[in-house]
């Protein structure tokens, strides 16, 4: 049996998406086949709309559909605090935590020589003109070796400019038990302990 070319094409395109294996792509294709035409058209529409309307903010490289992103355009955000993250998804994660009211800077990656990503491939240099003395820059890249290397690299660049640099805390996740933490994290949680007596 030969499958209809338009079905094959659909399965192939779906299986290119991250996290969707060939089996799920096939299941998804059959699911989509069963849906009413309007639903498919709406899905295709939002795909095209999103691609047409979204771009990166020229200041912080967050995703936006406006001239400036919603954070950069909001004067009530703390202007002397910039949180540097790897990806636009990290902005959403931090916003959801509700603990942050400063600005962002999205690198769109981490330094990883073996993957051919040097500092020049990231939105790294564009951070420097945003800094003024007295500002605080929070390095919130991941806690992998590459994320740590990117943070250290940034620290060297930023320090001479007179901004305060800080790094998000390493430690135990909330709700965790010590015995399920790995040794490295546990070591960092101990050495990074915080005084709670005045």
């Amino acid at each position, binding site marked *: 049996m030969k499958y209809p070319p338009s079905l094959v094409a659909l399965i192939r395109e779906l299986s290119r998406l*991250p*996290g969707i294996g060939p089996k799920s792509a096939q299941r998804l294709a059959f699911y989509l086949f069963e849906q009413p035409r309007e639903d498919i058209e709406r899905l295709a529409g939002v795909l095209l709309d999103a691609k047409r309307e979204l771009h990166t903010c020229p200041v912080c490289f967050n995703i936006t559909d406006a001239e400036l992103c919603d954070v950069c355009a909001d004067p009530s955000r703390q202007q002397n605090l910039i949180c540097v993250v790897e990806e636009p998804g990290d902005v959403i994660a931090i916003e959801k935590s509700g603990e942050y009211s400063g600005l962002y800077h999205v690198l769109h990656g981490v*330094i*990883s*020589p*073996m*993957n*051919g990503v*040097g*500092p*020049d491939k990231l939105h790294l240099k564009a951070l420097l003109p945003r800094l003024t003395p007295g500002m605080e820059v929070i390095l919130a890249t991941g806690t*992998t*070796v*590459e994320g*740590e*290397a990117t*943070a*250290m*690299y940034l620290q*060297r*660049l930023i320090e001479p400019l007179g901004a305060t640099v800080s790094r998000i805390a390493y430690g135990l996740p909330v709700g965790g038990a010590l015995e*399920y*933490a*790995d*040794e*490295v*994290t546990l070591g960092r949680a101990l050495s990074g302990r915080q005084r709670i007596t005045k």
Partner: protein
Amino acid sequence: MRSRSANRSGIVMRRRVTPAGDIIVTLLTPQGKIKAIARGGVRGSQASRLNLFHHVGVQLYQTPQADLATVQQSVLEGALPRLSEPERHPYAHLLSELADALFQEGEFSEQAFELYAGALRGVSHHPDPEWVTLVMSYKLLSLAGFAPRSRQCARCAAPDPAHPDPLGGQLLCGACSSQPPHPAERLEFLREVPRRSVRALMDQPLPAEQRPGVWRSLERFVTVQIGGVQSWRSLASSLGGEVVSA
């Protein structure tokens, strides 16, 4: 009961997180190179242990169906946190990429593991990580059977070549090369690196101004013999003298 589990101890040379949250690692172990997957690992404590350049013990589970072994458990056996420092990080990447290219899955080599482990330790602790990288890169190449020819011109086989080979990264005679000869110290290093011990080589570091020539030779030799290596890009400006390209 049949067992499809095996315990291995090795260094994480590569690490990739899939969109589904699995971690795929390539380990160099004394029993050879291994590629394995930690399912859902990014959400658990394996994310920490299976970090790049970590020395880990892993329990692997292999089913006949799957092409990748699964990491069941892992314990940390050693970490080199200083490899994140900007003046060390690109070197650790280069050495890992080289080792990954040089050693194949299924090849048993305790020496390869020891050499790579020693190289990372050196880059992490030694005050001159650049020199460690130059020495250990050549040592890794030699172990894998890629020692540059150094007694004869790489093109015409004339004895005692002393000139750079701008294409192949080996040594050429004066007739085959249009470039001036290597300075004496650099020439001695390039000639003797496959034969001398790591310790002897480490004890005689080249002065900084002679190293770019070694980097160029190494880069050419690796590119011709093994193929493209991504980490060169980040080292590009280090060939011009700076430590990190910026």
